[in-house]
């Protein structure tokens, strides 16, 4: 990939999105865990649960702030680097982003200040409501951003308007209740819960290994293990791929994940390991488990999953329809409106308009899609195949980690129930080393979903290459370096503060209430 503006814009987006997503999962999960811990405090009145809420709250705060700081970058980048995208789909894509601000961010951000500053200004119940408001707000924000993202994967409820040269909403409820968005929301939020659970589990395990704060650590582990077990079951069972049969490209993603070049009779076998070869278009040394892929992908024994070769052939047909749509559109625009052309042209646009985006894919190879040769069409259809080994391995590592999290949380759930949490140092060490793993799984999940979406920015509607701003490559390179610098400095500082806060541990809770508040939050003078 040469360093053109498209590649640079993609690099910057991927870099900032993956970085932003280092902080989001922990915020999603830890906010709920805080609310659960504080609920126990309010219900039982036992101060240790307040101490736990405050201690984990300190770590939550250090993480949260970077999520906020890097989140603004995400929202602004659509307009900055993807201005044709913003024009082309803003009518639909902008709405969930705005609603996210109104419904989620205000709730989360207004109350998060009160969470930290309000311990001695609010009643017990008042503060508990504040904590729940923060948890609710962060989870709502995941809902709306995934409705937006779900639409990129499965652009329902919209149509192209030749007069405004953009997609416009036709059915808002279809956008809202997009099945892909729902699958993504459940999966992503569960992944956040797993991240927080493993984090709490690991940090608590470290305390037990050091023989510090045993009471707090054990209680935290009990909460984290049960919450984490439920969440990791949900993240695996209700995987994102449940939405993968909704659209052609989602099917392509599924076939690439599987390294499945040819369609197999249902139910398809799952390739446990193998070496997908993009050039030879086959997967070497595949070890297959019968039936499993069909079950994962379709939840049925009879539905067929198309292979890559078949999907490419289908894509060729859609490119041809796209060319017909493109041709009709040019005639409509030349005549100055859909009402000024012959009914055949209008009909041609109505019949093929949904594949207009496929014609735009040809622009990489030829200026006017109508002049595309057979070879161009074939090439554009093959461009539709994502990088198979990347998807294949990302998915397998992610799923493998998912099963590991189920095992780990189930094990600690059992130990907690038998009151043996501090008996096995080996297992505690395992929990400590597991801390970074959910982040790896989450980042790989992003790669499967978004890298796997290429070459589309909006599936079937707009190719990524057509969506960029007409900026100079050096300008974007400059901001990439700028982001890389500040982000690197900040993650180093964040990790250092996190480790420092963990080493310092919670404040003793036999002190009077008023002094309990700040010392966990403020460095000693």
């Amino acid at each position, binding site marked *: 990939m040469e360093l053109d503006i498209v590649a640079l814009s993609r690099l910057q987006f991927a870099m900032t999105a993956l970085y932003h997503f280092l902080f989001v999962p922990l915020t999603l999960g830890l906010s709920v865990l805080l609310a659960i811990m504080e609920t126990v405090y309010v219900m039982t009145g036992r101060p240790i649960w307040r101490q736990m809420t405050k201690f984990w709250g300190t770590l939550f*705060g*250090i993480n949260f*702030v*970077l999520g*906020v*700081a890097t*989140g*603004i970058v995400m*929202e*602004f980048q*659509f*307009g*900055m680097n993807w*201005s044709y995208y*913003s*024009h082309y789909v*803003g*009518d639909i*894509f*902008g*709405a969930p*982003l*705005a*609603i996210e*601000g*109104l419904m989620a*961010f*205000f709730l989360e*951000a*207004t*109350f*998060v*200040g*009160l969470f*930290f*500053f*309000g311990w001695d*200004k609010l009643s017990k119940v008042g503060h508990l409501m504040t904590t729940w408001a923060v948890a609710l707000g962060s989870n709502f924000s995941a809902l709306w951003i995934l409705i937006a993202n779900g639409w990129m994967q499965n652009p329902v409820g919209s149509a192209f*308007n030749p*007069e*405004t*040269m*953009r997609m416009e*909403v036709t*059915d*808002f409820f279809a956008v809202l209740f997009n099945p892909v968005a729902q699958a993504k929301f459940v999966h992503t939020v569960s992944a956040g819960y797993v991240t927080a659970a493993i984090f709490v589990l690991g940090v608590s395990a470290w305390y037990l290994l050091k023989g510090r704060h045993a009471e707090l650590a054990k209680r935290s582990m009990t909460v984290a293990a049960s919450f984490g077990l439920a969440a990791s079951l949900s993240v695996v069972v209700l995987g994102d791929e449940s939405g993968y049969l909704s659209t052609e490209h989602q099917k392509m993603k599924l076939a690439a994940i599987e390294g499945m070049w040819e369609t197999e009779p249902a139910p398809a076998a799952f390739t446990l390991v193998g070496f997908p070869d993009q050039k030879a278009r086959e997967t070497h040394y595949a070890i297959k488990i019968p039936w499993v892929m069909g079950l994962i992908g379709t939840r049925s024994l009879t539905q067929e999953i198309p292979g890559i070769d078949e999907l490419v052939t289908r894509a060729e047909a859609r490119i041809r329809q796209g060319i017909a749509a493109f041709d009709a559109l040019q005639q409509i625009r030349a005549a100055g409106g859909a009402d000024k052309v012959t009914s055949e042209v209008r009909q041609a646009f109505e019949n093929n308009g949904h594949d207009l985006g496929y014609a735009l894919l040809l622009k990489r190879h030829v200026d006017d899609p109508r002049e595309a040769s057979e070879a161009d069409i074939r090439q554009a259809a093959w461009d539709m195949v994502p990088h198979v080994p990347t998807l294949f391995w990302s998915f397998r590592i992610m799923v493998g980690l998912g099963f590991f999290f189920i095992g780990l949380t189930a094990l600690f759930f059992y130990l907690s129930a038998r009151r043996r949490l501090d008996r096995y140092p080996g297992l505690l060490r395992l929990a400590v080393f597991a801390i970074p793993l959910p982040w790896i799984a989450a980042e790989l999940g992003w790669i499967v979903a978004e890298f796997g979406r290429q070459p589309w920015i909006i599936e079937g509607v707009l190719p990524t290459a057509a969506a960029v701003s*007409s900026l100079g490559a050096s300008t974007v390179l400059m*901001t990439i370096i*700028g982001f890389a610098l*500040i982000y690197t400095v*900040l993650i180093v500082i964040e990790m250092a*503060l996190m480790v*420092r806060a963990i080493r310092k541990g919670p404040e003793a809770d036999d002190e009077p209430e*008023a*002094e309990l508040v*700040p*010392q966990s939050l*403020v460095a*000693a*003078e």
Partner: protein
Amino acid sequence: MILHQLIDYETLRVVWWLLLGVLLIGFAVMDGFDLGTATLLPFVAKTDVERRVVINAVGPVWEGNQVWLILGGGAIFAAWPPLYAVSFSGFYLAMFAILFALILRPVGFKYRSKRDSAVWRAGWDWALFVGGFVPALVMGVAVGNVLLGVPFRFDPDLRIFYEGTTLFELLNPFGLLCGLLSVAMLVMHGGAWLVLKSEGPVAERSRICGSIAAFVTIVLFALGGLWLWLGVDGYRITSEIATTGASNPLAKTVEQAPGAWFENYGRHSWMMLAPVLGFAGALGSLAFFKARREVSALLASSVAILGIISTVGLSMFPFILPSSIDPRSSLTVWDASSSHLTLFIMLVVTAIFVPLVVAYTTWVYRILWGKVDAKAISDGSGHAY
């Protein structure tokens, strides 16, 4: 869905133009005092305890206030997609500068007090200063350049092209004047907030800085108006205006003309209220600083912000982003909005959630009402940052 026909497209566009103003003013009033406070931080607070008083004065609320900016971005995206696309990419490096500064700000608030070292804290103090000063300046510079016209054009596919929008070209004299006006206005506002939230030397210095800023605001606002009158060509639509037409900017013709930014005031004299409020608010703020009426000074500076931002919007109406190199590409209220249906849906959502947001924000501010207690900070109790 036919429900959206209840409100016609023209009305919805005007409503969303007003809401755009509400959002920008909401941001400038709510987050404006955070930006102003951060800008004042190194100047009104000398000792560590004083600085923490200043930081804690905005500590619990800046996060919620910043959502006005995020919502502004989202709402412009949803309701005015071409405006979002052109302005965010056209002002690319300026946007980057704002983002860079806004990344420093939350981190500065949160991380500064986590360590005891003086170097660490002094470093974050300057980061916070940058986080307040740079966005205030750059946003003002951007508004100044919008009044001048931005060098962009559309091709027939409505792809956007720019000619010369580097950071240095934005920093022209008029743009800089608007940038400084923006800084002065927000420093006045931040000063008023600090007077309200602090005591002793911090409050006294904030009062002095706020008064100076109020005075500078008046001078720069007058100077800006004069400059706009004498030296800046406005824009006017020369073709027939289809207020319910498709959102395609290329359907109209536009000319640049001296004094065109003042024509609305001739047609609708009530619009004069906006600049009057701008001056009256700043003057009032100056007077209330002197009279030591804390709440009134803050209210007056809010009125000044309302007046000054409204002046820009009303002068340009129906333009929202004029193009200097291809005037017909200019974005106006009538050809840069979302579809009828999207504007309607977003209005319904806004009507449901904005009252809720205002209600709980008010509740939170009431809980946090009162001065920051310097003694509690030096004891290490009662405040988080």
